[in-house]
């Protein structure tokens, strides 16, 4: 009974117990010193809180509020009105099927077309960070955490031939270890170079205006990465005249 009574003392003080339960609590409290003390403290706590009732000097805000209403401050914004309508619509019979269709569209039609361009934290601009699968040196890695380099191509090129790349930062946090930062860098570099090769293999399929964007980016990465020879060979293997010209330029530089 003691444990049950201890649990119900709060309800007893609140007057939330039935008469029968209340009388059982009273019987118990009469013989249990601990519950008697707890009940006394609880009653006193509630009495103290009740002393906060009233006694406040309350400002009259009615005139100020009505003036603000007249100034239009309580009008709903266009956004509020539209969001309320949207909520009502989504709660309606057509809401669930349409929301499902929208999510499906997003997953299967929009997301696969998104391209991501990744910046790899590297050294300053004059130093290569795109050395293919080569890892940055241990000494430069801590510094690399605070700087960003030229962007890299990433994601599947064949899924995104018509959209310009979008920027996304690759960041090694100060808290991550040098090793994990280097591993991430190597992985992203490898992905990026894989996509460079994938792009070159499909360059004929890329619409002309988009090719120029990719090729100019590509030449910059290749030069920065010291992968010019590799890139030049692959450029030469394509049938694109501009790629051929780029290949010649790379070879001259080399």
């Amino acid at each position, binding site marked *: 009974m003691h444990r049950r009574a201890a649990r119900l003392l*709060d*309800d007893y*003080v*609140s007057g*939330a117990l039935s008469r029968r339960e209340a009388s059982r609590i009273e019987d118990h409290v009469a013989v249990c010193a601990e519950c008697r*003390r707890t009940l*006394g*403290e*609880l009653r*006193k*706590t*509630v009495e*103290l*809180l*009740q*002393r*906060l*009732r*009233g*006694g*406040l000097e*309350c*400002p*009259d*805000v*009615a*005139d*100020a*509020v*009505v003036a*603000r*209403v*007249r100034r*239009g*401050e*309580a*009008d*709903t914004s266009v956004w*509020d*009105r539209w969001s309320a309508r949207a909520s009502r619509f989504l709660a309606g019979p057509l809401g669930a099927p349409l929301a499902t269709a929208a999510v499906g569209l997003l997953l299967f039609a929009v997301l696969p077309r998104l391209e991501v361009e990744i910046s790899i934290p590297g050294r300053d601009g004059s130093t290569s960070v795109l050395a293919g699968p080569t890892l940055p040196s241990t000494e430069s890695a801590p510094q690399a955490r605070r700087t960003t380099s030229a962007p890299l191509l990433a994601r599947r090129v064949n899924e995104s031939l018509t959209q310009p790349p979008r920027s996304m930062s690759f960041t090694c946090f100060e808290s991550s270890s040098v090793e994990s930062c280097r591993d991430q860098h190597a992985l992203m570099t490898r992905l990026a170079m894989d996509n460079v090769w994938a792009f070159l293999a499909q360059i004929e399929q890329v619409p002309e205006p988009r090719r120029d964007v990719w090729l100019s980016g590509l030449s910059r990465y290749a030069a920065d990465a010291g992968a010019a020879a590799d890139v030049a060979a692959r450029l030469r293997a394509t049938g694109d005249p501009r790629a051929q010209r780029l290949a010649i330029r790379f070879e001259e530089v080399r």
Partner: protein
Amino acid sequence: MSHPRMAAVTHPLFDRTRSIPDAELAGSADPDRELVVRWRRGELDAFAALVRRHQRRVFGLLLRMLGNREEAEDATQDTFLNLHRHGHRFRFESRFSTFVYRVAVNAALNRRRSLGRRRSQVEAFTEAQSIGQLAPAAGSDPEASLLGDRLRARLTSELLALPEALRAPVILFDIEGLSYGEISEVLEVAEGTVKSRIHRARQALRARLRDLVAAPESGS
């Protein structure tokens, strides 16, 4: 509707919502019913009367929730502006005063969120100090020396020290005198949750106010 500005202000709230048939309101015993109905018809005077009727309780609740007089006054105004803005959502399914409390609690939470918890607490402490000393006087009967403003300040500061989830239920139950059911509607949580939060809040307050509530040792 003599003034064009009046029309612009009062119409949108009522035009965009379904008007409530009188039959729907007929069975309601809500003492605010008549004023609410007039307000819904676009009478700003009725709205002003509702503000005057409820502002004291709203201000009291907000002062205890926020711990700062100026913030509480601003939040009181925000409460009634939001009430005017979203009043069309009230369907007389509960008492109007419960609906007002719900808007007020939301205004307090929004205000705390926008101010940041830290700033509010610092200001709350300053506010409580400005009302009176927080600590009980040493060497005297604690309760007798903490009457009036000093006791209020102490209680206010102890309430502010409670977690937000526990503070609102205990204020609404023990100070504002709402029922479990009404608090459940105001806070939009189950009645069982309300009871448990009140229980935890009282336990915490009992521990913090031990110097005031503990019975003297027998025989001493």
